């Protein structure tokens, strides 16, 4: 594609099957919130072990040290590899993947998480934030070395069907993008309030009538007309 680079946060990659898939990369604020949730979880666990451990004497001390170590270094690694995201990231709908969309391996997760020690410098992820702000895909240093991305997980929402009505065939063929716009409108029409739907449809229907794609449509609202046109597009 020779289009100028769009100013958005999507990351595209082509799979071996020959399709281009798209991921929406997460920015610093969401990631900071996810980190905060994780921090609360991690320190709660350390705190709980400290309380339980205090009744166990030295055994408890050893347990506490081990817990601190595991929470500090390996908590994100284990969750990212086995579950795709830490609990905090999951809470905010994020996942960590390779730049080609595949799930993390142990080695890439270790790289990105152990390098937190550098991203954390000079304090509270200063370098990491700076690097995220500069990088077009919000990568911190660890992400760059590991070749990973933090992305939004798109919800697998059920889509709405186009309301079935009597099809209204057009007199001439629209361009593909125009057809798609009409289809998109029809799929969303039931989510809009009737007056808003009409307001939106009004512009399109008027333009279609003026250019002779449809004959004037008396007796029905603009959104009804547009839905009927959509019906003619999806059904033969």
């Amino acid at each position: 594609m020779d289009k100028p680079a769009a100013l958005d946060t999507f990351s595209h990659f082509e799979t071996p099957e020959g399709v281009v898939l798209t991921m929406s990369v997460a920015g610093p604020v969401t990631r900071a919130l996810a980190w905060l949730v994780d921090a609360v979880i991690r320190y709660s666990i350390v705190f709980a072990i400290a309380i339980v451990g205090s009744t166990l004497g030295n055994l408890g001390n050893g347990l506490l040290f081990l817990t601190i170590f595991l929470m500090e270094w390996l908590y994100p690694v284990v969750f990212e590899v086995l579950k795709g995201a830490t609990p905090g990231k999951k809470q905010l709908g994020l996942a960590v993947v390779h730049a080609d969309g595949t799930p993390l391996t142990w080695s890439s997760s270790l790289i990105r998480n152990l390098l937190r020690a550098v991203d954390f410098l000079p304090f509270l992820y200063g370098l990491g934030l700076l690097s995220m702000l500069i990088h077009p895909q919000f990568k911190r240093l660890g992400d760059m070395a590991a070749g990973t991305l933090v992305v939004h997980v798109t919800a697998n929402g059920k889509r709405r069907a186009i309301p079935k009505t009597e099809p209204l065939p057009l007199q001439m063929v629209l361009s593909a993008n125009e057809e798609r716009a009409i289809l998109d409108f029809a799929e969303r029409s039931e989510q809009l309030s009737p007056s808003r739907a009409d307001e939106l449809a009004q512009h399109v229907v008027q333009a279609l009538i003026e250019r002779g794609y449809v004959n004037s449509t008396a007796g029905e609202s603009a959104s009804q007309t547009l839905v009927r046109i959509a019906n003619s597009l999806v059904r033969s």
Partner: protein
Amino acid sequence: MKQQQFESQYQATWQQFEEMLDELESSKKISRSMASFPALYRAVCSHYAIANERHYSSALCGVLHSLAVRGQRQLYRHRGHWLWRFAHFLLFGFPGVVWRHRGVVLLALGLFWLPAFAMGLAAYWFPDSIYMITDGYNVAQFETMYDPGNEHLGRRENRAAESNFAMFGYYIMNNVGIGFRTFAGGMLLGLGSIFFLVFNGLQIGGVAGYLTWRGYIETFWGFVAGHSAFELTAICICGAAGLLLGKALWMPGRLSRMQSLRAAAKDAVQLLLGGMLLLVMAAFVEAYWSPLNSVPAFVKYVVGASLWLLLILYFVVAGGWRESR
């Protein structure tokens, strides 16, 4: 083909694929056969491409896109039995990667051992120089720890096994943390790793020289002999992993700096994992073997020296042998 025909023709395929995905994504045991999964995945990919090309509605494209993304995440997952991979790493992967990068490993060893020797000799000849690297409080701590007049060694001798466990936990947290930071410092153009290596060399050498001057020979050297091979080598290997990142940033060769960094990180993380295993072993020895007072110092020296020899043999034989084939 109109969108609706297209949908009704393939709806069943998508449905089946989505059910498989749901099952794969849930943590429950997989009951159905997944033999058709790759074929279905390819079909969904091509449907997505077709839907896009024919400009079907964005919602349909969105559904297919999400199916394709989820499918890709499942299909290209990296699998393998962890026990087998662990054994392979221990026997071939780790010594191999150390051998392959022996130049950088030697550099790290030099960055650690030269300051250590220099500071050790300095502290032995001019004991006051110990105060250049640490303060009086720490020096007093070391002295009480290794004072032959104490019945302690490292810590209390009459401590129970659970106190050993406490120290084990402490050594893991502290030493592995140091190792990881030494590695991460490599991201700062290698300078952080150099700093940590030299700094640790100065500290350890200085304390060793100072305590030798004090005449705490059996207590100090006897205590550290056992775990020294694992611990010091591990710190150097973690440092070497960091230097590898630094080298990739300074000298990317014919790659871009990012590509070179990613390539180096693959090997660096193997060095690091091996270093971590060594540190865990060191912590184990340090907590359970080193403080044993019933063992004569001579035996401890012999064990320590054999461990050094074994470790060097491990890298040269297991690493070099692999290389020569």
